[in-house]
């Protein structure tokens, strides 16, 4: 498969998880789309390295976390100028936004470090060692962070309401 085709296949397969991961990291749905798109753009620029990496997903999620940290550190440059106006008629996305907003509120108590561990371990399905390598922390720290994060989620009333189907 050629360069673009290989990348396109990979990007299409990972798009959903990248957006969800961005939401868990604390982005709004729109920001999550931008973050996922920026991540894929960086992947495309370095696709030669990404495609040869031992673990592609680990490489790509490392990019995702770096992009997210960059976006919080300085002005957001994720949106690029384009010759085609992006403002187009789209269907009402209120339900989707509400859903993302509910997740965001549910995860509101988690710190950035805890969110990153949840994303890498649960969404990206990376091992403890891979997670530790990406976050540059010890595997034991990954365990403890994940444990605390899950404990916080278990105690979260929003999650409990959502699980029992009560109004959000």
């Amino acid at each position: 498969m050629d360069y673009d085709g290989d990348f396109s296949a990979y990007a299409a397969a990972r798009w959903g998880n990248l957006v969800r991961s961005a939401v868990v990291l604390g982005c709004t749905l729109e920001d999550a789309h931008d973050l996922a798109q920026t991540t894929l753009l960086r992947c495309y620029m370095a696709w030669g390295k990404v495609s040869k990496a031992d673990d592609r997903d680990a490489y790509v999620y490392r990019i995702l976390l770096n992009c997210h940290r960059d976006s919080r550190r300085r002005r957001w440059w994720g949106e690029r100028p384009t010759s085609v106006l992006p403002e187009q008629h789209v269907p009402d996305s209120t339900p989707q936004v509400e859903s993302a907003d509910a997740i965001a509120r549910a995860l509101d108590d988690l710190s950035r470090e805890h969110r990153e561990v949840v994303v890498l371990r649960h969404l990206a399905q990376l091992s403890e060692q891979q997670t530790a390598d990406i976050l540059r922390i010890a595997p034991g720290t990954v365990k403890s962070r994940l444990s605390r994060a899950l404990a916080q989620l278990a105690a979260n009333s929003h999650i409990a309401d959502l699980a029992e189907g009560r109004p959000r």
Partner: protein
Amino acid sequence: MSNDAPATLTRLLDEMPVGQPPLADVLASGRAAKRRQRRLQVGMVSLAVLVVIGGSFAFSRVLGPTDSDTLVADGATNGNELHATVEVDPDALTSRELVGGEAVWDPSDGALLYASGPRYSSSCPPEPTLSNDDGSLSLALAYRAGANRVCTSDAVPVLVTVTGLESPPERLTVSEEGNPSQVVEVTVVPSPPAVNEPGTDTVYGGLSCPFSEQTRAALDIPGPGQPTPQEAVAPFLGSLSISAVHTKERAAQVIANDADGAAVIVYTLTKQEDGWWPDGYTECRR
């Protein structure tokens, strides 16, 4: 409290619509970014090359040939044992009193000298090519073909020295870089007057004794000048007699013999406004 929080979170995330991946936008943006990256790389490489060239140029300007340096290009030799060298030395031309486009034969060195008409970069002298067909000597000066060198922007004349000629040619056909061929008349530099540093067996001025037995003295007399060289030396002759007088313009020699007829002293004289004055003499030790 729920013990199923991760599962609930995962279900909520799965239910969240994420839309279609904007692959076309990502590919278009990625290609454009790659083009920009390539242009930037090309620009950086070009800049690096310019910096290297500029640095080399500046280096050659700073440490290039100075007035006291002489840069000599490799010579050219043809099958007739002729050899030419190019010398880049501004002082070389002035010391030989040569002007641009002039060719002279130096008999003392047995060499033909040619001062270039056009000027050349002092760090990149032209290379000479000689040919001597049917007695017609030709010299071509040109930069080395295909050479990719960094040259200083100054312009100096070069001096070409051709050796191996048995006799001075009458003409020299010169073809210089970027100029039409021209025929230059070769001027023969007159030989410098021989300096008579006599050997030990040389007899000076007709004296009868060897040079090693001769002594010289200067005369400082009150004057006035005398009408003839003979009268001027008369006070110093004593028992000697004048055997010969040689006069040339304002100089003269008077040779005197002893009683045995041997030439033992030679007076040198100079003619001043009031007559002849003896300057000194060379005599055999007695």
